[in-house]
């Protein structure tokens, strides 16, 4: 499978000249299976750019199908969903997997985003493409040749967050975002879930030394420790802090690579950038 990053920023879009190399769109990652299956991990504002590209193909003719895996419904992971033409063209189909909250199902949350106080769409019933919602569970499911597993990353029932593991012919991609390792047992569960992944995409907004109030989100060092404990081959940091410039991110990655080299660690470290592609 192939991965392409369309949005790598956390929290808010950052269209700042000093941040354009890594990019300012919020979380959206596209995975293409060997048979062309299209799976999208989260639909932050990066999804608008992906949508533009998809319009050039089958989606532009109302014959496209994609699978969305939503980790959670905070704005930076869903804001792009209603905007691209692909979701407005009848005939296109979106199979959407994600967690239901005790405040409302994923479908209700999305319908609310499209209600007339927030959107001219006037509710999900009036959007053009077919949207099929499936509440996520730990039961594995199949999309084309890919097997997809999911795992809850939070015990808070009003704002659930899930991780995804995609496997195709022995190759493994794991996606962990917005995790709070302070919650009991989550770190161990995440390590087990990411075990032997060839690529782990992990949110990494801040370093431990940065004293930022960040709702208990994991730090960049946590991503590395999880990857090492899980024997991950390549770790891709994403969900970059909105204050982080390209030069700062370069420096952080350089420093962390030196640290890994000094440890004799085999872990390969990358920072995701918009447009970056990987073969898993």
């Amino acid at each position, binding site marked *: 499978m192939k991965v392409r990053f369309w949005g790598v920023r956390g929290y808010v879009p950052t269209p700042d000249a000093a941040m354009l190399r890594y990019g300012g769109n919020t979380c959206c990652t596209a995975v293409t299976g060997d048979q062309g299956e299209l799976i999208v991990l989260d639909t932050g504002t990066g999804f608008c750019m992906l949508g533009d590209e998809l319009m050039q193909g089958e989606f532009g003719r109302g014959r496209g199908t994609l699978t969305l895996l939503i980790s959670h419904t905070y*704005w930076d992971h869903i804001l792009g969903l209603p905007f691209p033409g692909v979701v407005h063209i009848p005939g296109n189909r979106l199979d959407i997997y994600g967690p239901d909250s005790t405040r409302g199902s994923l479908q209700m949350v999305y319908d609310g985003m499209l209600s007339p106080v927030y959107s*001219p769409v006037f509710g999900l019933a009036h959007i053009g493409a077919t949207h099929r919602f499936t509440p996520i569970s730990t039961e594995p499911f199949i999309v084309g040749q890919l097997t997809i597993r999911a795992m809850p990353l939070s015990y808070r029932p009003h704002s659930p967050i899930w991780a995804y593991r995609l496997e195709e012919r022995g190759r493994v991609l794991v996606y962990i975002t917005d995790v709070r390792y302070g919650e009991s047992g989550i770190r161990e569960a995440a390590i087990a879930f990411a075990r032997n992944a060839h690529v782990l995409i992990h949110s990494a907004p801040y370093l431990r030394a940065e004293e930022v109030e960040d709702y208990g989100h994991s730090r960049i060092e946590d991503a590395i420790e999880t990857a090492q404990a899980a024997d991950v081959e390549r770790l891709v940091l994403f969900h970059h802090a909105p204050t982080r410039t390209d030069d700062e991110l370069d420096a952080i990655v350089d420093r962390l690579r030196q640290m890994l080299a000094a440890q004799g660690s085999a872990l390969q470290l990358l920072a995701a950038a918009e447009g970056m592609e990987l073969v898993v």
Partner: protein
Amino acid sequence: MSLDIYGLARTQSSLRTTLAGALSDPLFPLQFDDLRAQLNFFEIGAGSEFELGPVKVRTALANHPYRALAYRLETSRGVLTFIPDTGPFHTVLFGEQRIEWAGQPTARSQSELRELAAMKEAILELAYGADWLIYDAQFTDAQYARFPHWGHSSASQAREIAEAAQVRQLILFHHDPHRTDTELDQIVAKQQSLAAPGLLVTAAFEGMELERRP
């Protein structure tokens, strides 16, 4: 910290509920009531007039799906009018029901024609003589023809409002997400070439500052 938040009173939802919905789990990692700032909500309507210190504020209704409010801010040193998210006044783009689009931006009745005329008149009055008019100019004319029901204007429609209201500087705003810098430069140049004498056409950009009158 205290924030005074003004917005349009609507039947579907209170201003507080609308913002709280967007700033609560599962869309945002806290509860609205946990925000530490003091939030004061003021639901206002079209035609409101009030003062914020030395600034006189007036409002008018914009023509946007499910309604938007336009503002005029006036002091002894200058007038700024902010008219985002409005279509031209060809058809009424809001109401309690979903707009069923018939394909042409035309008024459907005499009463709708009267409503449109009154709405446009109020917008022109709001913008009249402004030093700065910030106006929705998302579209090119060709895009407007394709999406007239979206509730956005073209740059030429913005210029026509600015001319009719005898504005000094038009600031095109709410740029289409696909509009490149070069295209915007071209749009500004074209609208400036068509503009009535005395009207300066510009496009808003991040970091732009407007100087008060000397």
